[in-house]
């Protein structure tokens, strides 16, 4: 119990203290404090995952029927382990990156708070607790988007806030109904709705389910509420973009997993119009996201559009509701997390050393920063889905799961669109590699200078790259674990 609480509130408190504290005279002491906080939080989360597995407790009662409770289950382990690894890597990366940004103290403060809030989301034991921290996540991550204070950042932050609040309230709207038609709001594999409500109010509850999926889907950048994502993610400092794009959006995924598999239950939604509509939305997003990314010229924006598309791969897997596809979706949560954070860190490293943001300015970048670009290339292959990287396995499961399911049309249409999107992914990620390593005959081969960034930047990058490859090379333990989860919730 204390470990769970500590892993949530320690980073929040540490972040708050950092915000309140007076500006430190030198950068060093700030970095040391922050670093200690990062490591401690990492240790706390790992300890929680190792020792507190399967436990749960109620913290206090919001109103008589609404307890705020936390617990650790298998799904929490997946999400919080991923969150921790990416947060730590991106955190240490920012020690170097933030040198050329201002207001570092504020950045680390909110970074830590968001870390704590994400842990709370992973450990939330019922829907109302989840909702509390879901709102909190929006508010505390907004300063990361607003960081540089430019007009563009403010507009993006506003957009982020509106979309997120609208989404959250769509979800809250549904929670009211679920509260009425269920025994409790606690996450139970297989759903909590009472059987009488499921037969008598099926129509209403399906609408509620759809509204809630849309609402939580805002965070996961699902069409039609995706427009905030490509605006908000690129304006943040690169390591913040990495966690925004790789982890914070996963809160939306986690929300939908919890909602569909732990609140409504598969049996209620399978074969309903909600599933069909949801499939249409996810496939639209997959295709549209890739298309938009393909047309985008600014690297970080391109990566943000790619996030839109890739998140809907996961959502597609969840929407098919077949054992294979759900496993694939959850595996893609991990694979995409590692890959996308690595990609953003690469973009950050490039911006940090060269100051260039547009893809077409980056000719010959592979000669200047070979290590960074090698990482970029490897994870790009992963995102496209070329073996032996992580993306391949997850997409394999997604496609076979979809074909195995008996949903008319979508069972084959899904894999087709996934393939087309994979081609587009190659189309928008690889040109940078090609131009970077093979700048062409007119490039000045004599005068480029080695500009590899410092170890503080490259080591986190390499760790994430290696992880994304490991997920693909030795997927069996992870898949076994996921299969276990899936067998309980399906």
């Amino acid at each position, binding site marked *: 119990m204390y470990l769970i609480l500590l892993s949530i509130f320690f980073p929040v408190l540490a972040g708050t203290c950092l915000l309140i504290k007076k500006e430190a005279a030198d950068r060093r002491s700030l970095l040391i404090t922050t670093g200690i906080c990062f490591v401690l939080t990492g240790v706390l989360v790992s300890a929680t995952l190792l020792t507190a597995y399967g436990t749960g407790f109620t913290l206090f*009662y*919001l*109103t*008589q029927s*609404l307890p705020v409770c936390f617990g650790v289950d298998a799904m929490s382990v997946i999400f919080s382990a991923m969150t921790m690894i990416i947060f730590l890597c991106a955190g240490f990366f920012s020690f170097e990156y933030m040198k050329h940004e201002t207001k570092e103290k504020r950045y680390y403060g909110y970074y830590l708070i968001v870390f704590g809030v994400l842990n709370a989301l992973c450990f939330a034991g019922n829907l109302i607790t989840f*909702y*509390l921290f879901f*709102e*909190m996540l929006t*508010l505390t991550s907004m300063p990361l988007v*607003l960081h540089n*204070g430019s007009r563009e950042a*403010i507009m993006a*932050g*506003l957009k982020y*806030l*509106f979309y997120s*609040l*609208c989404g959250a*309230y*769509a979800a*809250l*709207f549904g929670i*009211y*109904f679920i*509260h*009425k038609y269920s025994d409790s709001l606690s996450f139970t594999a297989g759903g909590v709705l009472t059987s009488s409500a499921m037969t008598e109010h099926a129509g209403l509850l399906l609408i509620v389910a759809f509204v809630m999926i849309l609402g939580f889907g805002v965070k996961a950048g699902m069409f039609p509420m995706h427009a905030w994502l490509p605006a908000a993610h690129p304006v943040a400092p690169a390591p913040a973009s990495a966690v925004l794009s790789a982890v914070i959006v996963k809160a939306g995924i986690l929300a939908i997993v919890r909602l569909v598999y732990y609140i409504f239950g598969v049996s209620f939604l399978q074969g309903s119009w909600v599933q069909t509509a949801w499939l249409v939305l996810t496939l639209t997003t997959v295709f549209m996201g890739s298309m938009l990314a393909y047309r985008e010229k600014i690297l970080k924006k391109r990566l943000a559009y790619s996030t839109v598309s890739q998140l809907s791969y996961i959502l597609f897997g969840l929407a098919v509701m077949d054992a294979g596809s759900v496993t694939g979706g959850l595996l893609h949560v991990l694979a995409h997390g590692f890959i996308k954070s690595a990609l953003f860190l690469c973009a950050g490293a490039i911006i940090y050393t060269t100051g260039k943001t547009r893809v077409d300015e980056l000719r010959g970048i592979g000669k200047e920063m070979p290590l960074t670009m090698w990482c970029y290339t490897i994870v790009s292959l992963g995102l496209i889905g070329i073996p032996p990287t992580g993306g391949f396995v997850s997409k394999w499961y997604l496609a076979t799961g979809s074909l195995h399911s008996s949903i008319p049309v979508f069972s084959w249409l899904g894999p087709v669109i996934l393939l087309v999107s994979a081609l587009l992914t190659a189309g928008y990620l690889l040109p940078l590699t090609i131009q970077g390593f093979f700048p062409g005959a007119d490039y000045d081969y004599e005068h480029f200078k080695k500009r590899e960034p410092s170890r503080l930047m490259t080591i986190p990058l390499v760790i994430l790259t290696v992880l994304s490859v490991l997920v693909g090379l030795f997927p069996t333990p992870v898949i076994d674990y996921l299969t276990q989860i899936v067998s309980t919730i399906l």
Partner: protein
Amino acid sequence: MDFIRNFPCFSIMLCLFAGIISSGVKGRTARWINIVLLTTVTILSACTLFYTLSTGESFVYVMGKFPAPWGNEIRAGVLEAGMALFFCIIMLLSLLGGQHKLIAEVEENKIFLYYVLTNLLLSSLLALVYTNDMFTAYVFVEINTISACGLIMIRQVGRTIEAAVRYMIMSLLGSGLLLLGLCMLYDLTGHLLMSNMKESIAAIVAQGEYTIPLIVAIALMTVGLCIKCALFPFHAWLPDAYGYSTVSSAAMLSSLVSKGYIFLLIKIIYRVVGFDIFNNTRIIDVLFVFGLMGMIFGSLSAIKENDIRRMIAFSSVAQIGYIYMGFGMGTQYGMVASVFHILSHAATKSLLFIAVIGLTDVSGGSRKFIELTGSAYRNKWAGVTFTVGSLSMVGVPLFSGFISKLLFAQAAVQVDGKMLPALIVLGISTILNAIYFMKTVIRIYTPVEETSYPSVTFKDMKLYAIVLVFFIILNIILGISSQPIVDMIEQGLAMFA
């Protein structure tokens, strides 16, 4: 402990006498009298609250020698005592928080008048809360109107005089309707004491006589009170009155004066007409619809507004709409949610008004959004407080606004016919709230390159900063430990019946 039964009457008298004494002293002394008075009444109300909680029942205090059904009575239960306590705290905070503006905006030889009016206002609020007979209620409604007008007009600029006249006209129309309804009820029942009226009305309804006059009387009283507390579409007087008067007045008008009338309406519903009889009339449907419309149109007007004070004033229209939506549901849950929202809105709205004044002060006194850019950096305390208030208004968890929305929604799902419209409008209104409040928060936190306006620190405004901290604490208490408060409200409403 039975002497505590004297406290309600004693506090009303104390306020009246303090008003009289203040009219003969200088501004500074009047302020001290006022502060001492408010503290005393707070303590007295707290004692009454604990007394009623410990005995678990309400008590009636007979004024003068005439027993019921002729005499004049005061009645105190958990809800009345709690409300009185809450009103005193909010009034104290609003006055202290707006004190520096008051000194700046009001002519020095008129400041004592401000405190005279405040004391009278408090006496009328307490009377509205505690009274057990309709005639006393009417008398104090008038006192309330007059003192509120004075509070608006005391800052003598053109707009406040206009606002006061508008307020006067609308308010008198409201009291007129209330009086008409009251006369009709007196005709029907032959009583003015609430408990006797209720018995007679129950008898009349049981016999099935005078159905139409009864409904007309109820409708007149309801509409009269609705005009006075600015339910949509009777809200036209509100933005000017709240927007241009001195800030303490605005805070008190929005969080106390209108709430006093709403509380009187609750008393009428429970103690005069009877909850079930009131709910069987179609009036609650009308209230429900007006409440819903208010929630949307109030917010829409606030979005269009370019003046931060008027924006907050319009948001009051929306919040009053929430309260009437709760009435309109016609259930106990709806009523509990409404009463909680009275508390939550009173705490939040006065906080916002007081916080805004800190922001406008560091923007050259301008209330236009463009001038307010970056003001939260110039006055950090006000900036944080305004953000807390905004989050509470939008309904973010941990603040009081979230709990009221939760209670409204829980009440709504119990009523089949009204569930969908209530929840949908609740959703829309929340999003509209988010639009204009978050827009303002972003605006005040947008850094500006160079500014000619000075920054202020804690040293320049100790009292103001402390008041802000108290406001935040109050808001968070309402947001986190809502369960005991809701229990108390339920207990109080049960005592009404």
